[in-house]
């Protein structure tokens, strides 16, 4: 289960670090996860600019988010509401009074050279999230969820690496500057041992499902609307004292979360085993190699000089408002899963596997498009799961929609496709050949249901194997397999075997 996501090539990259099992035998990993969720509000956190992803650079900017002299922020009420929604869904307490704070540091893509964030007065704090991991539930304690704003984006042109060093010049796009974020900070997660990578992944996956169901974000890790920083330290097995931790950034997919945790466990274990010390540092995850590397070493510790943002008044959500938001919360994913399991009649095991494979919503959508729950589950969990696994992607990342899967299922049940043909149709859809009907058309995959064509093939097969025909006539009906096989071969598998059998018997009667 835990290792399924790593390809052999990725494992090879781990060769120069400690063996995972040995690392876990000697050390207990302590995890901490900081997840940034970009809120899906129509406008930015402190101005009324649009937040559309992928717009022409610097077209969604104004004096406020460009930090022009004199401009002042105004809090986006929807952003606060979303943050409260998140806090409530994470079982947090909601602060009746809290403030924004300025986090001061210089960075070219941060217009004010301070980030408007929250410091010691977060909007939500002290919660938890129950995370399904394998057949267990791991409770992850939430320290806080606070509101802040995103930065702009730098693009470094020239130079080999696309990073700032060696670049000839940099381009700055401030469209993202000021987009609302909620940062969800877990408390240290201890006692996970060998399942640490899996727990980290499952936690982020569960958060992702939760954010989607809350309607607060599209949580696209590939587009940066959900970002994860992984804190990890090792402590000698059984020791209550935490070791020095590293913070790994640039972890941009669920699979990367798992890989980053695993790699850091192995790397830190090898350093510690060799008598070395872990440096408290920021590391960057490399998607290609599956390894982490230290970021630029700073001579001095970062001092953000936090202080309450004097340009904004405190945020004081009334108890009534918080209760209204609580009452209006959508059905949370785990509640929804229980309901769907009942409706679909799945066993606990079936539902758990489906959940672990992140297929619940896909099945739900497939069912909504007209398929039976059993068929939908079986498609997503067997053939499509195999395709996803061999491509190294999530089920949801496959190039097929639930509606398309439902269409294939419907063709099978109407008899116009056999199971084998249906898989070929799915292959065609995955290969980008169009809708299922188009694939059937283009690849000529429809079941041969034209009786005259079938009859011709049957007559030919009977003529070629007169001994078999005699046996059948004599009542040895099981001999019919040879005829059916020959017909299937002649029609390149596009015949319905039952139909062939029926027509053959009719011919000989």
């Amino acid at each position, binding site marked *: 289960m835990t290792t399924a996501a790593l390809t052999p090539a990725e494992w090879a990259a781990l060769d120069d670090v400690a063996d995972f099992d040995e690392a876990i035998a000697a050390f207990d990993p302590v995890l901490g996860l900081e997840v940034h969720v970009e809120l899906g509000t129509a406008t930015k956190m402190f101005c009324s600019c649009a937040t559309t992803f992928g717009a022409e650079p610097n077209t969604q900017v104004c004096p406020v988010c*460009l930090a022009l002299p004199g*401009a002042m922020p105004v809090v986006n009420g929807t952003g606060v509401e979303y943050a409260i929604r998140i806090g409530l869904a994470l079982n947090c307490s909601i602060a009746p009074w809290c403030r924004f704070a300025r986090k001061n540091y*210089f960075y070219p893509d941060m*217009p*004010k050279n301070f980030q408007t964030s929250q410091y010691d007065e977060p909007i939500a704090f002290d919660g938890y999230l129950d995370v399904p991991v394998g057949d267990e539930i791991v409770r992850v304690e939430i320290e806080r969820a606070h509101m802040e704003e995103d930065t702009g984006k730098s693009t470094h042109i020239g130079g080999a690496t696309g990073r700032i060093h060696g670049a*000839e010049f940099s381009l*700055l796009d401030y469209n993202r500057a000021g987009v609302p974020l909620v940062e969800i900070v877990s408390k240290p997660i201890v006692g996970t041992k060998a399942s640490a990578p899996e727990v980290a992944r499952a936690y982020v996956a569960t958060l992702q499902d939760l954010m989607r169901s809350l309607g607060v974000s599209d949580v696209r890790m590939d587009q940066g609307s959900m970002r994860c920083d992984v804190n990890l330290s090792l402590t000698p097995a059984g020791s209550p004292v935490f070791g020095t931790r590293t913070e790994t950034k640039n972890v941009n997919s669920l699979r990367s979360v798992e890989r980053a945790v695993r790699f850091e466990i192995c790397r830190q274990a090898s350093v510690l085993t060799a008598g070395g010390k872990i440096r408290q540092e920021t590391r960057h995850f490399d998607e290609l190699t599956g390894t982490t590397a230290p970021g630029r070493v700073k001579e001095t510790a970062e001092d953000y000089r936090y*202080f309450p943002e004097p340009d904004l008044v405190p945020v004081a959500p009334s108890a009534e408002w918080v209760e209204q938001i609580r009452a209006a919360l959508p059905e949370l994913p785990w509640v929804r899963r229980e309901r769907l399991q009942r409706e679909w009649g799945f066993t606990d095991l079936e539902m758990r596997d489906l959940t672990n494979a992140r297929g619940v919503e896909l099945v739900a959508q497939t069912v909504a498009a007209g398929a039976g729950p059993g068929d939908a589950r079986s498609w997503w969990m067997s053939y499509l799961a195999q395709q996803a696994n061999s491509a190294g992607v999530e089920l949801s990342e496959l190039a097929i929609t639930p509606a398309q899967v439902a269409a294939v299922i419907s063709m099978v049940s109407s008899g116009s496709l056999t199971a084998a043909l249906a898989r070929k149709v799915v292959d065609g859809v995955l290969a980008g050949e169009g809708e299922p009907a188009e694939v059937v058309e283009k690849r000529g995959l429809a079941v041969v249901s034209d009786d005259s064509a079938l009859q011709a093939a049957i007559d030919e097969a009977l003529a070629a194997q007169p001994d078999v025909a005699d046996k059948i006539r004599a009542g040895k009906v099981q001999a019919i397999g040879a005829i059916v096989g020959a017909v299937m071969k002649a029609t390149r598998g596009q015949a319905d075997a039952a139909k062939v059998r029926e027509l053959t018997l009719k011919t000989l009667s």
Partner: protein
Amino acid sequence: MSLNEDLTRLSATDLAAAIHTGEASAVEVAAAHLDRIATVDGAVHAFLHVDREGALAQAAAVDAARAAGNPPASPLAGVPLALKDIVVQKGVPTTAASKILEGWIPPYDATITTKLKQSGIVILGKTNLDEFAMGSSTENSAYGPTGNPWDLTRIPGGSGGGSAAALAAFEAPLAIGTDTGGSIRQPAAVTGAVGAKPTYGGVSRYGLIALASSLDQAGPCARTVLDAALLHEAIAGHDPRDSTSIPEPVPAVVQAVRRGQGDGIKGMRIGVVTQLGGEGYQPGVLDSFRAAVAQLADLGAEIVEVSCPHFQYALAAYYLIQPSECSSNLARFDAMRYGLRVGDDGNHSAEEVMVATRGAGFGAEAKRRIMLGTYALSAGYYDAYYGSAQKVRTLIKRDFEAAFGAAHVLISPTTPVTAFKIGEKVDDPMAMYLNDLATIPASLAGIPAMSVPSGLAADTSLPAGLQIMAPALGEQAMYRVAGAYEQARNAAAGFTLLDRVAEVPTVAGR
């Protein structure tokens, strides 16, 4: 005296009357002031930029509206004004008197600017100040100092020295100032003008280049209390773009002035703050203040003495809070999006360009405060400095609350000394900071406070100011006392203070 010079000598109230009755056109009035600026500003240097074309176009629009039979857009429609160059105005260079913003043309209007335009007030140009409003003499301007029209070798106060000097030199009848620790009141006091700092949040800060966000407040400057009140009503009011602006109706300060001038102030209790006087105050300033107290008593006010024991810590607290916020507010000047850019030659990283630009673009005082503030906010020092200063701030507010329990308004000298010589204190920041001793408590408490001329200090023959402070949103009491006092002082002296200002030598300006 030409007709033009007559127009520049009129109050805003009288100019408005002349324009609204058709005795003078707004264009004539604007032209008279622009000509005056052209004649004398070479000597005074009140303006950093004169927007002749824009001003005449605005004035022409006022005249056209009148010709079309429309009522005046506001009581001040057609009256010219000098705008402190820390308030952004679309399409007009705005520098905050810093090299780091040289050449920047704002693409938007501050809310104040919008309100001025909507009121038909004609913006003549942008006035000089200490860089980013840090200073008490306007000597910290990157574009050279402004002279005090009473004696051009002396400072006009600061940071709003340009706005105050423009009034005293009859270059404009109205001006906008901004006050963080006294930058409206202190220049008004040392130039013989009127300047009011409204309640914090009374006037929008949107488009006002921030020095210290929790202290900054824009306000009106004029030659008379009534003019200041009219301008106050034009610029005040809730602004959804400034979260710290107060969602309350604008206090009826014009009515309050008229009430002070008509009904007087009989029965009002006026508190003299023990801590704002005595040691460190120039004898002539204290004499002028005592005369003002006597005059207020003659008007029937009950004079009480109040003690505000924590005011002694005000200056120290101010010089932690203000630089702290300033260090953060000035971080945005980094060469990335606007203003000066130094070292962008293909061989330097963005970070190096930021460092080089800030090194070249900020003046000494800006650097001093950025360093002070950065230090005060640092981990390990925050509680001792910024944290303690905030506690002092709370104690000062409580002192005020107690004092306002005993008096409707509080008074003090506005400044400890009259205008000093340009260059006299530039090497002694502490001596410079002491100029704001009496104005800082009201800034820290966010309450309204204004300065009204209290005559010439006998020892220097230079203007002194009476500071009147009122509880938050208590502008009406403040203006009522100011109106009554101004009328009584003028009547007793037989002249308006600014009638006695020396004629400025003719040195062509911009």
